[in-house]
Structure formats: structure tokens, C-alpha cells
């Protein structure tokens, strides 16, 4: 296995580093500026800026896994076994917990318990 990787990959590595740095700079810029049209537009229960952050994070995660951890050189069966499992379980857990979290919030809000005083 991996005989093709004996050729040096340095060019690609530096390219990915540039890409990850660029995305991080964009994230930090948006985090400090918080552009009004992104920050005050809500889509699916969250503002657009948060969605931008999450998408950029997943973009970075893809490059770290595929280029640095060399997932692109592995067999599809390994790729699915690792990434498929993790992605499915996380989506499932996050969906359940966030739904429950906002439900509890609503209960506190309309309930008779006064706690913030």
C-alpha cells in the first residue's frame, strides 16, 4: 500500500496550510466585525453568521482529515467506517440535544418559576 505516496507531497501540504490560514483569517475578521446583515438574519433558528462559521469549520475539518490525515489515500471502506460513523452519530446527538435544549428554554420562559432575579 501507499507506494504512490513516496513521491513528495510538500507542495500540496503548503497549499492546504495557506488555505486553512486564509479561512481562519476570514473567520476572525467576521467574528470581530459581525456584519449586520449576517448577524441579524435568522435561518433555521440560528443567525446566518453562525451558519457561515459552521460551514467554514466543516470546510477546514475536511481539509485536515483529507490532506493532513491522508484520508484521500485510504480505501473507501475505511473512509466510510470512520467518517460515516462519526458524522451520523454527531448529527443524531446534536439534533436531539439542541431540540431538547430549546424546549427547556421555552419551558423556563413561560413557566411560573422565576429564577433570574
Amino acid at each position, binding site marked *: 500500500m501507499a507506494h504512490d505516496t513516496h513521491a513528495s507531497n510538500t507542495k500540496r501540504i503548503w497549499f492546504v496550510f495557506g488555505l486553512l490560514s486564509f479561512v481562519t483569517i476570514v473567520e476572525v475578521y467576521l467574528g470581530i466585525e459581525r456584519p449586520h446583515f449576517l448577524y441579524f438574519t435568522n435561518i433555521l433558528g440560528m443567525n446566518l453568521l453562525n451558519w457561515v*462559521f459552521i460551514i467554514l*469549520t466543516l470546510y477546514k475539518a475536511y481539509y485536515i482529515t483529507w490532506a493532513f490525515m491522508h484520508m484521500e489515500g485510504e480505501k473507501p471502506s475505511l473512509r466510510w467506517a470512520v467518517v460515516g460513523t462519526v458524522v451520523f452519530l454527531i448529527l443524531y446527538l446534536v439534533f436531539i440535544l*439542541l431540540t431538547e435544549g*430549546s424546549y427547556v*428554554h421555552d419551558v423556563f420562559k413561560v413557566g411560573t418559576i422565576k429564577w433570574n432575579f
Partner: protein
Amino acid sequence: MGTTVTTTANTWGGGNEPMGASYGKLMMWFFIVSDALTFSGFLAAYGFSRFKFIDNWPIADEVFTHFPFMHGVEAPMYYVALMTFILIFSSVTMVLAVDAGHQMKQKKVAFYMLLTIVGGLIFVGSQAWEWKNFITGEFGAVETKGGSILQFVNKEGERVKLADFAATLHEERVQHERKNGVWFVGEPSLPSYSVAEVQAGFKAHPDLLIRTEKIYRGTEAEKADKTLYNELNKEKHKTVLTRAESEKMLANAHLVVEGANLTRNEYGSKLFADFFFFITGFHGFHVFSGVIINIIIYLNVLLGTYERRKSYEMVEKVGLYWHFVDLVWVFVFTFFYLV
């Protein structure tokens, strides 16, 4: 028939690699899967608590504002961004070490491994500094009997430190130490000011106002609310109360809070500090153990172990772990500092 038998013998005869990955690498991948699920469990729990207290969660930009050697300058996020760069860069040197290992260049592998170790140490050090600032706190706050945090601002909406206005009363309050007690129980160190001192200082400074944990949403009910100081209130910022209402709220105070610990913190929601300590602490522990493992492998590279083994796969395996730690940080960075 004969061919079938031979194939079976080859399949189960050893030396076969399922999914085309060697035993060690496959196990490292499986470990990463389980560790990723642990971290996502923490982050999802953080999301749960944040959604539960969405109306009064601390704003990260106001909490993490320090930068080394720039005392008093508000620099939100720059320092964490720098930490992120350091970790990404150490990931790059790690992958360069793996790359050099494929070409059997011992010296190059050693050099890049060393850079990776240095990067990891700088990152852990930065995290310790970040913790120190978080634990020490900057402005100080007061906790009410109901358990919510009150912070102090002036009429321009700028935060005011307790030290800048609290009065000095001649009160006798000595920290109760273990050695003095009958039952050998002590108490944690006392805050610099007592509640009475803060209340007296507040009375003496008529330009001070109280800022609550609650995030101002700009609803009609809030706009009509006479207890809110709406000249200062901005949407998605913490709500400021009028002077009269501030005095009423402060009468309810029973604790002075400076900095953060696992029980309470001056930034707001108690769970915020708990999750911060737990998640960044768990990640920092991973970075630390990664550095230790890297040092072991680095020494092996220097000793020529992998040169004799004619394979640098071990470097590749610790590389996987190191990249995973970087990957986790990318998510922690997003969910703790950006979102």
C-alpha cells in the same frame, strides 16, 4: 475448488490487512473515532446548555479580550486566533515529518518532529495563560440572592471595575482558616471587597448603572419597559438597567464574584465556566499527551529505530493523533469563541 482453497488460506493465513490499512493505523483510526465521539458529546452538551440559557449566555467577545504585553487593550479573539495558527502550523510540520519519513530521510523527520513538539508546547503554554486570565477575571461582579450576575457600567456603557468605585469600610472579616476551626474546615479566599463595600461605593457614584446577564432583543415589551436604560441598550448585547432599578437590584446582592471557578464566575452563567474548563482542559490534556508521545517518537527517530525498521509508519500513527487534536481545536475555536 483448488483455487478457492488457496484463496481462503491466503485470507486467513495472516499478513492480510483489512481496509488496506496496517493494524496499528487501523487501531489509531478507531481510537480517533471513539475520542471524536467523546469530544462531540462534550460540545453537544455545551450546545444543550447554551440553547437552554440562550437569553443570558455570556458573550465570548467580552470575556476573552487579552493579548500578551498589551495590558488594558481590548483585543477580542486575536490571541485565540494566534493559538489556532500555532496549532495548524504544528500540524503542517507534522505532516512534513510524515512526508520525509516516506522518503526515509532521518534528519528531516527529526527536524520537523522537533518543530511540532515546540509548536505543541507553545500552544499548551498559551492555553495556560488563557486560563490564568479567565480565572483571575478583570472587572468583578456581584451575585444576587437569585443567583444571577450583576456587572457595572458607566453612562457610556463601558465596564467599570469593582476596584474603581468600591468604598473602603472598616469591617472586620478575616478568612476562616482550617487551623482555627473546630471541625478543621477552612473557607476559600475572600474577595477583595465585601457586598456592603460595593453597595456603599455604588451609592457614592451616581453615574454607575447595572448590567444584567440578560441579552437585549429589542422587542416591543423591552422598548416600553421603564426599568431598562434603553439609551444604552443595543440588540444582542447585555441589558442595562436604569439607576433606580439598579439600586433595587443591588440591594438583593449577597456575594462578590471575582474571576471564575467551577461554582461561579463573573462573566454570567455558571455553566459557561464549567464547560470552558472542562472542554479546553480536556483538549489541553490531549495536546499535552500528544507532545509527550511526539517526544518519545522523536527520540526513537534520533536513535535510528525506524531507520533499522526500514519504515517510518510510527511517525504516521502519531501524526494521525496530532492532526486529530488540531481538528478538535478547530471545532472548539468555532463553538467557544466565534458562534
